[in-house]
Structure formats: structure tokens, C-alpha cells
């Protein structure tokens, strides 16, 4: 199909019109990205007096550094848990909301609110809820016989950042799942009901397979979110602790640069994260274009 083409008589007008977008991309992406790449091959002393070119030494050092590899592992566990938890809860809520007929709008609107809360605020919220001394969540857990203390217990700390990160993402996933469910023709569900499939069976054998493109899309989006957008949550709740139990990659980038003042290593970590996000985006586009086969 041929799309309509607008032709400009003026030679510079089209360039002028796309210029703002190009300027924004250049200033906020291309320039910092190239700075990161440039810095990742340099070594700078703590006072910034002297820099020297070291090639790939920063990268080599990172991959032989057990702390970095541990952080990598922490991030993988963290993002798997965040994606799993937020998508699981969102799916359950969406399936229920799909059946609600009365006051569906109110229900949906309320469920979407958490997405409007900034990650750092969400972090603080959950930090208060689960604070071992003043938090009502921690108190409730204490009543149930569990001694919650994310300042001491690495698993508690991980659970806290997973909950805080997933909570916000539930809304987003919910929206997509609900839209996906509502796009499935009603008559398919009815045909399955006549074909002796109960509600649970219908969900597993009809709705979920038809939802698989949405599931895949959200999986990538959630992993990207957990990898890159959760700095605020970690910073506001655990600060990476106890020990290094909750130091995820983005947090480590920040800490190594601004607390450790190791700019070269931090830049190298940024470059690695950049490669990961580019890879994820590529996978995303490739599959979204073709849709998941069903």
C-alpha cells in the first residue's frame, strides 16, 4: 500500500520540523551515551586531575569482579520476581475485572492509580509500611510470628524491594491484560462453555493462549522496568543493604560513580546496561512485529 506523501516546496522546512526531536534525542541520549562509552575506556583518579586511556581494562576488571557478578545475579532474581509477581497479580485482577459488569469503571480507575506514583515515593511508602520499628506491615508480620527486619535479613530486604517495585507495575500490566482479555471475542468463551469447559479450563485453554502476545510484550516491558527504572525504589528503601544483598545493577552504577568515585568502572557498567536494553528492545520489536504464533 502506498501512503500519502506530503511534499514540501520549501527545502528547509522538513528539517526544521524534525529538528526539535533530533535535538532532544541528541542532548538526552546520544551525547550522554557517547560520554559513557568514552569514559568507559578511561581511568581517572579520584580527584579528577589525571585521566589515562586503558582500553577495555574496565570491562575486564568488571567481569572478574565477584561483587559485580553477584550484583548481576541479584538483578536477575529481582527482575524475575518483579515481573512474575506483578504480572501474576495483574492477570488475576484483570480476569476478575473482565467479569465485573457493574461499576467496572470505578474498579478499573482505582486499580490504575498506583501507576501514577513515582518509584521513589512508592519506595518510601513501602519503607514506612515495613519499617521494623514503626511499620504496620512489619507489626502484622510480627503478630503472625515472623520477625520482619529488612535491615538485617537479605531475603526480607529483597522481598521489600520486589513488593515495592511490583506494586507499581501491577497497574500497568493490569491495563494491558484487561485490554487483551476484552479483545477476545465473547463468542469464543461461549463456544468453550458449550464445549464442556468450566471457567478454569476456559482460562487455561482459550484465554491464556490467546493472551500470549500480551504476556510476551509485558514480560519484556517488566524486565526492562526492573532493570532500569527501579533505582529510586532501592535508594529509598534498602540503599542496597544489608551488605550488598539488594545492590541491583543500576544501583551499583550510581554507587560506584558517586560514592566509590570510580567513574571508569561506572561508565563501563552503564555501557553494559545499555547493551542489555538495546538487546531487549530488539527482541521486543522483532516479535511484536510478527506477533507471537498461535
Amino acid at each position, binding site marked *: 500500500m502506498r501512503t500519502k506523501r506530503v511534499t514540501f516546496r520549501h527545502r528547509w522546512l522538513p528539517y526544521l520540523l524534525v529538528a526539535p526531536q533530533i535535538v532532544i534525542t541528541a542532548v538526552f541520549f546520544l551525547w550522554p551515551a557517547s560520554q559513557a562509552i568514552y569514559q568507559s575506556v578511561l581511568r581517572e583518579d579520584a580527584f579528577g586531575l589525571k585521566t589515562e586511556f586503558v582500553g577495555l581494562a574496565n570491562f575486564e576488571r568488571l567481569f572478574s569482579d565477584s561483587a559485580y557478578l553477584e550484583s548481576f545475579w541479584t538483578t536477575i532474581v529481582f527482575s524475575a520476581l518483579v515481573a512474575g509477581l506483578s504480572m501474576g497479580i495483574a492477570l488475576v485482577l484483570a480476569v476478575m475485572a473482565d467479569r465485573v459488569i457493574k461499576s467496572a469503571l470505578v474498579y478499573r480507575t482505582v486499580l490504575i492509580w498506583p501507576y501514577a506514583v513515582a518509584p521513589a515515593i512508592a519506595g518510601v511508602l513501602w519503607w514506612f509500611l515495613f519499617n521494623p520499628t514503626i511499620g504496620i506491615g512489619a507489626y502484622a508480620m510480627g503478630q503472625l510470628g515472623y520477625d520482619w527486619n529488612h535491615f538485617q535479613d537479605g531475603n526480607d530486604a529483597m522481598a521489600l524491594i520486589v513488593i515495592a517495585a511490583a506494586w507499581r507495575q501491577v497497574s500497568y500490566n493490569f491495563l494491558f491484560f484487561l485490554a487483551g482479555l476484552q479483545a477476545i*471475542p465473547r*463468542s*469464543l468463551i*461461549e*463456544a468453550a*462453555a458449550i464445549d464442556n*469447559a468450566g471457567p478454569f479450563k476456559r482460562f487455561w485453554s*482459550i484465554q491464556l493462549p490467546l493472551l500470549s502476545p500480551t504476556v510476551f510484550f509485558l514480560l519484556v516491558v517488566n524486565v526492562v522496568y526492573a532493570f532500569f527504572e527501579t533505582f529510586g525504589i532501592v535508594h529509598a528503601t534498602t540503599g542496597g543493604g544489608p551488605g550488598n544483598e539488594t545492590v541491583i545493577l543500576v544501583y551499583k552504577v550510581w554507587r560506584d560513580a558517586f560514592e566509590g568515585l570510580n567513574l571508569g568502572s561506572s561508565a563501563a557498567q552503564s555501557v553494559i546496561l545499555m547493551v542489555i536494553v538495546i538487546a531487549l528492545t530488539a527482541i521486543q520489536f522483532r516479535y511484536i512485529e510478527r506477533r507471537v504464533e*498461535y
Partner: protein
Amino acid sequence: MADITLNHIRKVYPGGVEAIPGLSVDIEDGELCVLVGPSGCGKSTLLRMVAGLEEVTGGEISIGGRKVNDLEPADRDIAMVFQNYALYPHMSVYENMAYGLKNQGTPKAEIRERVNEAAGILGLADFLERKPRQLSGGQRQRVAMGRAIVRKPQVFLFDEPLSNLDAKLRMKTRVEIRDLQQRLKTTAIYVTHDQSEAMTLADKLVVMNAGRIEQVGPPIALYERPATKFVAEFIGSPPMNFIPGHAGADGVTIGEGVKLDDRPHQHGEVSVGIRPEHLVRDTAGPLSVDVRVVERLGASGNVYGWVEQTGSELVASLTDATLPQPGETMRMSVDPAMLHLFDRETGDRLD
């Protein structure tokens, strides 16, 4: 095999819209019952209530003597063919047909046998591994049929199953459905808004209007003696002509003393119904028709024009040899026995 009884069925939607105010029909075992009517007349709602997809507000539905009002669709022993076929897009043709049996816990070997049998009947044997989107419209329609017949249900429900097919395929599939239903002798309810589908398929034809039954009976009886003006207009193509007239002691007249029938009546002001196919050219005929448009269909043709004496619109179906030219004025007559007289106020049949 089972008969279906609908006893004073009511449907009121939340918000108080009464779709069906109370309707009763008996469908005998092995019969194909067609529900026909204009869109919004409640025919689909009725079918969906029999299927269990729509709640019944009042009355009783029983299948094979068993009250099914509160049963789940799966427990009613029915199969339904949807207008959009509702094939499961992620399953192959085989899986689509096997799905219902699998859920019933039928042994694998038997599923294979029954699906293969159905596929053989419907000419789908070569397509069993394909996905629905790789099939043509007609093939999809047949898969939907196959999904219904493999389960050997007591009742088939068809919800406008041919409306997504092109005209030629629709005729062909119509015959196939009739043939299949007669062979299997399964009771069926078939919903359509197409009067020719209704005429050709039905054992029992139910004409519905605004949630009420206008008339029930064999199609030919409805054609020959429509009980109301609505049925007369709905059944038959092109539709029946209506000319205002007078049916008194001096016979049936229209306009200024144009006599169509000598026999005395005592109905007064009436609406005279004349089927287009009962009009013939006759130089001594009482009707004078101004021809406006002539549709030639080959063996026959439709003539559209006005009755000069009354100004009423008129359609006549004539054999090709007797077709006039547009702009001509022709005389026509009609066999008095073929006239239908309706009350002008209520639309009810008068004789």
C-alpha cells in the same frame, strides 16, 4: 434426540427492557425449527436462552422432557454454530473439533474416530492440521458444523450460520445443512433473518416480531395463508403487494369500483394482499399498471410500477416472454382465490 418445549418464556434485560414478553413453542423430535424475523425481534435472544448463554427471566425451557432453565450450557447436551463461527484460533481444525469431546473425558481413540468421521462427512479430511486462519470462509463454516456434530448432541442451535458467506456458497451450504440434519435426525433451532433460508430449511417456521410470535407452521402454510400482514410481507420474495380496498356485499373492489372478486364479503375497509407471482398479464384484466422499472432475471422478471386506479406501488413477477417495457401501461389480472384480505387497523387476516 429430543423435543424442545418453550413455555411462556420471558426475557427482561437489566434496566427493564422487555425483549420477549412471554412466548411458547413446541418443537418436535428431529424437527428443524427456523426462527425468522427482522433484526431486534428477539430471535437470537431466544436461541441464546435455549443454549444457556442468556438468563431466562420467566417461563420454562425443557429439552427432552428435562427442565434446563438452571443448567449450565455444557449440561444441556446442545451444540451451537455461531454467526462468526467462534473457532479457537490457536487450535488446529482437529483440535477445534476434538475440544468438546476432550473436555467430556472421551477416550482418545474414540475422539479420533469421531473427528475423522465428521471430517469425512464435511469434506475436511485434508485440512485437519490447518489453523482456522488458513481456511476459507466456507471451510471455517464447515469446521464450526463439524465441532457441533462430533459431540452427537440432542439439539443443534444455529445462530445465522450462513450470513458471513457469499451468496453462492450460502445456497450450497444451505442444502448441505438440510441434508446433514435430515441424515442425523437431530432436533435443531435455526435463527435467520433471511426469508429464503427460512422457507427452504424449515420443518416448522416461527415468524417473530418485537418479541412475539406472529405465526407458527410449515413454511408453505405460512406462505399460502399468512395470519397477519407482517407475515405476508416477510415471507415470499419479492414481498406481497398491499392495495387499500373494500370487501362488501358486491365483492372486493379497489379504487373507483375496480372489481377483483365477485363473491360477497362483509369486512368493509380492507387491505388487499396480492403476491407478485400471482399477477398475470391479461388485456381484459381489471388492474392498469404503469411500468417504471423492469428487472430481467432470465427465466422470469420483476416489474415495478404503480396501479393507475389507486396510485399504489406494485411488484409483479412475470415470465420473461410476457415482460413489458419500462414506461408502458399494461392490464393485469389476479385469480380471486389468490387474494389475501387483511384488517387495515390490526393487520390480521380476515378470512
